[in-house]
Structures are given as C-alpha cells and as structure tokens.
C-alpha cells in the first residue's frame, strides 16, 4: 500500500498538504493522495518502512537554507548519518553503499553535492519518498541494506506556478504549469551554488573552483482516461578545483519514461524505461607530477510492474526487470602508467508479492523475487591467488556470459491488530546486491571504487528478521513504535590489509570477502497534533564483521558500529507566520581503529594495530534550530528561513589522527572537526 501511495504521489499536481488521515484513491482525472498517516503507520503490514512527506521536511531544521531530504532521513530511528558532511545514510548496520536510492524508479549512485554538504535532491522537485529499512517488498531489489524510493513531483495541469530560493551558498528556481490544460504539464527546477562566484572576487582564491548544479524536469501527459505518460530527467554536476593542481568532478545523469495504464477494478500496469549514470573524474597536476583517475556506473533498464486488485482484501504485485550494467572500477593515468578496468553485466529479476487481509485483525504479505546476475565478457577476468596476485587470466568473448549468480529472495510480513489502535508486525526478507562499493574510510567520497559480482566476487546476500509493536492514541495525537531486528549478511567486501583504492587496477586483487551481522532495537514516540509536533527516537544497535585475513579472522565491530543514537525533533507553530524547529542529535562513540603499541623502523615510530575498530571516538551531539517566517499573499507566498546548525558550537569528531607529540614519539591523538556553529539565512517566494 505504501508503494502504491508513492506511485500515486507521482500524480500530485501541487505540494499542498493533504488531510491527515484521508483515504487515498486513484483516478486519472482527479487524484487524491495522502501519504503516511498515523493510522497507516500502525496498520500497514510492512514493518521497517518509513514514508517521508516532502512538506514534512519543514519540521526539521535547515542547513544552508535547504530542506534536505537526506538529512531528514538521518533523523529517523534506525538510520545513521555517515558524518557531519555526508548526505549518505546507513540503516540497521548496513553501509550507505549497501543502500539503493531510487528516483522515479532509476537508481542514483551519488546522493551528495560538495562532498555531501548538500543532498543531490532538490526538494522542490520531490513529491514523496519511502524508506524501506531492509524488509523490502518483492518489487524492490539490488540493495543488501535499505531502499529509499523517491518520487519526483509533477507540474500543475491548471495554472502556472513558480518560485525561487536564495540562500547564502546556493539559489534555486522552479517553474511548472500546463502544456495542454488538464492534459499535460511540466515542472522544471534548477539549483546552483555561487561559491565559485565569490571565489573569483577574492584575489587569494580566484583560481579555485567550487560549485555544483542540478536540474530536474518532469513532464506528464494524460493520454486518456486509462493512460498516462511520465518523462523524468535529472542531472547533477560537481566540480572542486584548487588552482590548476587538483580537479575533482562527479556527475549524475538520469532519464526515465513511464507509462501508467489502468485496468478495470483498480488494477494497473507501469512500464518504465530508464538510464542512470554516475561518473567521477579526478585529476592532479602538481610540480610535474600528473595523474588522473575516473570511473563510472551506467545502467539501462526496462521495468514492468503490475498491480492487480482482487477486491479489498487481496492485492498482487508482479513484475520483471532487465538491465544492462557497465561499471568502470577505475581508469587512471599516472605519468606514463595507464590502467583501466571496466566490466559489464546483464541482470534480470522477476517478482511476485501478494497482500492478503485474512481477517479484520490479520494482514499478511508474502513475496518472492528471483534475481539473476550475469557478468559479461569483453574484458579480462581472473583467478586471484591467496597473496593477491593474479593466477590466471580469462578472456571471454564480447557479451559472453561468464557466470550467472542466481538468488531466490523470499519476503514476508504479517500484521496482527489486537485492537484498532495497536498492531504487532513481524517480517523477514532476503535481499541481494551485485554492484559493490569499496572504500578505505567510513564515508562515501569521489574516490570510492565500484565493481560488480564476477567469477570471484559473489553477490552480497542479506537476511533480516524484524518484529515491532505499534501503538497510537485514540485521536492519533501520539503514536509509539518499538522495533527489533537481526540482520545477517554474507560476501561483504573489504580492502586487504595494506591496500588502498589505488594499489592495483584489478580491484579483485585488493579485496577480501567475509560476513557481517547486526542487531538492535528502535524506539520512536511521535506527537502528531497541536502547535508542537515532533518525535523522539532512540536506536540501540550492534554491527559486526568477520573476514578471513583481517583481524586474525575474528569478529570485529564494523566501522559504522555505534551503540546509542538519540534524536529529538520538534516543530512549534508560534503563529500563522512563525514556525520554530529544532533537532538534537546524540550518537555514542563510533568504532575506529587506533594503535595499541608502537615500534621503531627506519628511525621512525610505527604503530602496531592489535585489533580492527577496537576503540571508540568521542560522543557526537549537536543542536540545530531554525525559524521560518511565512507571509501568504493573494498571489505570492514569501518566506524567510533563519537557521543555526550546531547551536552550541560543539566540535564533533570527524577524523582522529595520530601525530607527533612534543617528544616526537607519535603519541598525540588529534581530533579534527568539520563544523562549529553555522548560521544560515534564505529567502524564498512562490507564486
């Protein structure tokens, strides 16, 4: 039902908030949509799913004057931020590289601008989103952790509307309206930073470059009572350059065409054709030393979804997807040394998911997804020896199937409602992932290397069980949830000791595979009505990894392991014009690796690391606040937003380094922080 809501939200013609608990129905002529209501949260059969309404982003404080969907997601129970400057998120012990972020059905692989300060997604272009925390319905795959399914907003079919936002670092504009009244519409949004323009005006920084832009466009056309077409385009580009020495660029490009057809009785078919590409391109030219490095992920897919309604208690979702994938794990030139590793694959999936209301108190959902992933010839494949050297080369013909990884993925959820106000939910899901990211650090960067499952690398396969209790009060003013989960994952990859992304071009020489497990509990209490709304979320979590060849083959805390996360989010409507928002975040210390002893080699003190991730960084906490002033005129709505990130100016750990102390013996632990207090202001208007 949640997924259906998201599909329908694509038909939204305005971002006007809907009644809290109205019932969603679908008509091509008149679309009535609601998103996540309290009742839905309690009664939905799917456990571990969070629906995010874009207008509700306003209840979280803004950084740099932006409503940021990715930062708002990081405030949900069971979801962790990677770091201060990251748009990426981690769910239930998974890494951000194990998530899949879908925008109008197409995957987006890098979700951050300026290293993650801004999210890739401009909120003006979004209608809604659903986060599945590992317990995916069968129509979703390709992620061993979570799926964030974002739907782009469509334009107004009756009237032209527009708006603009000007912040300290970026500006954006939106324009939408009918192409043919009541038949076809468009929506275009664009955003760009102007940090580079400031740089040009300062003598010391005029040779530096720092900017990003993104453009979203969506067209929809109601062909008939039964048929509707949606065309979505999205591109984002980042560039950071220091003098003529360093140049870092990355970009996303996505286009999708969707045909929605309605059958009698509320059933429908969706056919989606999309392309999505992520590219990075980094160069260094430093005192005669020249190097550049680039990589990409390209994916073209055809996806078919059927939703079949057999009347109120029964619904089936079925479909298939076929994709061609091309991943360049790296191409580099270091002086006269050139290397390139690029591989392609053919991936197919077919799924069936049924939801059955067995009685007034019992709803059951079960599904099965069959995923087949075939790496293709045209580039070299290897056998890798235990020491990481290449033992044998395989040169398959172009497009010849090297091997096929077949994974059958059962999914099931059950919801029991002892009363109208209470539900108990249980769920199980097996998920798999065939596009893998490798990183030395905990956070995503343009230097991440990607690869695909091959003759050596197996699909990551995760099994998760989850159970939860959901309770709401009579008038839905408050609701509470308590969920527990256990997740086990196999074939997780990590770098071998002493290897980094640039050690070898053949990525399989750099990695080892192992297993992981995570478990924990999430509690959330929400206040939904009144002047003061918000939520308190607490997550207790463990996340561990075991890889032969690392940490003596023993289990160790994953580098995203931290025990306690607390989030308190509040929005207070002071008057018709003023709204105040605040969010306080507390994370107990994150696991990291520190030395346990030291020794002398070549007249230098060298550290000895006795254990992987055996230490804890200092606790992280901060308070963000914002105040917005809104004046709604007859034709124009104006808004000022004043925000302060990290109000009490706490310097939180971003990086811990070990440096020389006064006696030169390298015993000084130094914590680097990214942000102190950061005020921001933005002005926006809409007409």
């Amino acid at each position, binding site marked *: 039902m949640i997924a259906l809501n998201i599909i329908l939200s694509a038909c939204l013609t305005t971002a006007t908030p809907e009644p809290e608990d109205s019932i969603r129905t679908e008509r091509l002529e008149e679309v009535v949509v609601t998103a996540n209501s309290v009742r839905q949260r309690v009664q939905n059969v799917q456990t571990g799913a969070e629906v995010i309404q874009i207008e509700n982003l306003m209840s979280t404080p803004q950084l740099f004057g932006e409503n940021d969907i990715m930062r708002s997601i990081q405030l949900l129970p069971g979801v962790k931020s990677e770091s201060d400057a990251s748009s990426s998120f981690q769910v239930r012990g998974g890494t951000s590289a194990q998530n899949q972020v879908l925008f109008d059905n197409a995957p987006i692989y890098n979700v951050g601008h300026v290293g993650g300060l801004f999210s890739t997604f401009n909120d003006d272009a979004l209608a809604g989103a659903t986060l599945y925390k590992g317990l995916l319905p069968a129509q979703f795959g390709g992620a061993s952790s979570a799926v964030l399914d974002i739907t782009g907003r469509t334009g107004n079919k009756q009237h032209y509307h527009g708006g603009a936002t000007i912040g300290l670092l970026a500006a954006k504009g939106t324009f939408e309206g009918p192409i043919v009244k009541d038949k076809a519409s468009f929506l275009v949004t664009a955003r760009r930073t102007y940090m580079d323009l400031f740089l040009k005006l300062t003598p010391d920084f005029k040779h530096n470059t720092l900017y990003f832009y993104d453009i979203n466009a969506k067209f929809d056309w109601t062909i008939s009572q039964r048929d509707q077409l949606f065309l979505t385009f999205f591109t984002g580009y980042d560039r950071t350059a220091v003098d003529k020495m360093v140049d870092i660029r990355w970009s996303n490009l996505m286009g999708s065409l969707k045909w929605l057809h309605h059958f009698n009785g509320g059933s429908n078919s969706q056919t989606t054709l999309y392309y999505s590409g992520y590219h990075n391109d980094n160069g260094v030219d430093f005192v005669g030393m020249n190097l550049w490095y680039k990589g990409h992920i390209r994916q073209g897919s055809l996806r078919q979804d059927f939703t079949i309604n057999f009347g109120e208690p029964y619904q089936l979702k079925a479909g298939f997807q076929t994709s061609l994938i091309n991943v360049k794990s790296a191409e580099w030139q270091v002086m006269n040394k050139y290397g390139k590793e690029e591989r392609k694959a053919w991936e197919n999936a077919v799924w069936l998911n049924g939801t059955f209301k067995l009685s007034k108190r019992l709803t059951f959902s079960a599904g099965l997804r069959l995923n087949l992933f075939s790496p293709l010839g045209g580039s070299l494949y290897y056998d890798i020896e235990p020491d990481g050297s290449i033992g044998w080369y395989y040169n398959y013909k172009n497009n010849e199937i090297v091997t096929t990884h077949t994974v059958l993925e059962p999914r099931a959820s059950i919801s029991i409602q002892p009363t109208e106000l209470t539900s108990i939910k249980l769920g199980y899901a097996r998920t798999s992932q065939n596009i893998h990211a490798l990183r030395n650090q905990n956070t995503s960067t343009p230097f991440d290397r990607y690869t695909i499952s091959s003759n050596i690398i197996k699909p990551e396969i995760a099994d998760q069980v989850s159970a939860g209790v959901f309770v709401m009060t009579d008038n839905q003013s408050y609701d509470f949830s308590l969920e527990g989960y256990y997740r086990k994952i196999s074939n997780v990859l990590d770098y071998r000791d002493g290897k980094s992304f640039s050690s070898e071009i053949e990525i399989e020489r750099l990695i080892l595979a192992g297993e992981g497990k995570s478990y924990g509990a999430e509690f959330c209490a929400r206040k939904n009505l009144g002047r003061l709304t918000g939520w308190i979320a607490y997550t207790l979590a463990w996340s561990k990894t075991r890889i032969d060849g690392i940490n003596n083959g023993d289990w160790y805390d994953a580098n995203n392991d931290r025990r306690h996360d607390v989030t308190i989010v509040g929005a207070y409507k002071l008057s018709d014009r003023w709204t105040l928002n605040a969010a306080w975040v507390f994370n107990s210390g994150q696991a990291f690796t520190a030395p346990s002893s030291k020794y002398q080699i070549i007249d230098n003190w*060298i550290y000895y690391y006795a254990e992987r991730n055996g230490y804890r960084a200092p606790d992280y906490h901060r308070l963000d606040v914002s105040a917005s002033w809104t004046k709604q005129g007859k034709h124009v709505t104006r808004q000022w937003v004043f925000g302060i990130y990290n109000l009490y100016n706490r310097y939180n750990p971003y990086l811990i380094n070990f440096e020389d102390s006064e006696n030169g013996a390298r015993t000084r632990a130094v914590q680097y922080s990214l942000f*102190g207090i950061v005020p921001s202001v933005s002005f926006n208007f809409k007409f």
Partner: protein
Amino acid sequence: MPLMKKYIPLLFCLNLILLSSCKKDIEIDYHQVDPIYVVEASVSNEGMEARISQTNNMDDNSTTSNIDNAVVVVTGSDGSSKTLTYSKNGIYKSSAVGVPGVEYTIDIQFDGHHFTSSSIMQKMPKMNNFRFIRKKIVTENYQMGELLLQDIPNEENWYFMHIYRNHLGYRWAVKRDDTNPNGELQQLFTFAREGSDDKDLLQEDDWLHIEIRAIDKKSYDYFYSMQIMDNTGTNPIPNFTGGCLGYFSAYSQITYDCEFHEADVEDVE
C-alpha cells in the same frame, strides 16, 4: 550596487570562517597488549645488519627493549653464508657485502622463536638531481624537496628513499618505476608550511643526508603498505614468517648529502 559588491567577498569570507575546521587533542585509553618482536634487517653493498627489538606501549618512548641473545644467519642463493655478530642496542652486524641478483635468506633464532625472510639484492640506483622547491598552494607556501632518479633500464624496479635531517629520520617514501619505466622518476617530499612554527620546517644550515635504495618487490610491498597505514589503519603486509614485525631487504644504496639554504629554494608553478 557598489555596496553589494563590497559585501560579496565579506560574505564569502564569513562562509570560509564558518566552514573552517577545528582540531584538538583527545585522550585515548590505549589497550595493553603483549610485546611483539620487531626485526629490521638488511643486506646491502655496505654490509649486513639486523636489529631485533620489541614493541613498546604507546606511552613508552624508550628504545631499550633489545634482544641480545639471537643467532642471526644470512645465506645467499650463491652458496654464501654469514653469521652476524652482536654489536650493541639489539644490532647484529657483518661486514660482508651483498651481490646484486642473489637471493638472501635470513634466519633468526632465540628463546624458541624462529623468524625467516628472504630478499633479492637489486642493482645500484642512480640519482639525477635533488633540489629544494617552494610551492604555493592556495594562500600558503610549502617547503618541499624534489628528488629525481634515473630508472635502472630494462627491468622492473622499486626504490626506497630516506631523508635524514641533522642525523634524525625526517622523511621517507617508496616508488616503483611503472609510471615511467626506463625514464626519469620524480619523488616529491613535503617538508612544512613556511611561516608556521612546525618543528619540521627546515632551518638555515640544516644538514640533509639522503639514502636511495633499489629494493625488491617484497620489500616494496612492505614499505608501501607502511606508507599508507595512516589511511588504512592496518599493519604493514607481513614480511617475515614466524610472527614478528619488521622487514628484511637486500638492496644497493647510494647516498647524497646537502645543506639547506633559503637562497637555494626555487619557486615552482
């Protein structure tokens, strides 16, 4: 408009200040672990040497954990064999020199421990030039050194470079020749930011001693993994069997000595 233009750089500077990072020292309660043996051993064109010591706790800067009762034997694939004699401070020595192309194996035994490793002696490296340079990075000038090597022709090579400053280890790096085989190889060393109170900033008349070694691949893998260990948080790739830390390397070495004079520093683009 002129007023606006005046404020634009100010706004930018404000942002820079707001986004500036901060660093501070933190206390770490280091875990206590049992000491581990460390071997640093070499065969070169100047002799054979091995130092055997143990790891220290993080707060222990002493260099007294030396082993003086080991039997250290180096054998070569040419049939040669030498037993190194104990000198002092855990150091065992022999005046016998290595021969390029010979694979040497070191055997160390004491108190029931047995550590072994092997390394192939490489040919003599060649240095083309060393100079002090100044490079402006955004707003700051950095003091650097540029070392140019001439690659040993027609074979795969790996190099280790070590700069001593006033007799103390200062900077080191490893390089392989795959970026310009048979040609000139460049290695840059960043010393310090000019104008800083960094103790690493070179001072007038500082004496630099540079050792350049041609090493084998196994030694290179060890040093390279040691070079990136601050980023990876992992130990260097083991070079010995038997469970000790450290390395054994057979190499040919040249040295170069110079003094630092501010007037010699060349500005580079």
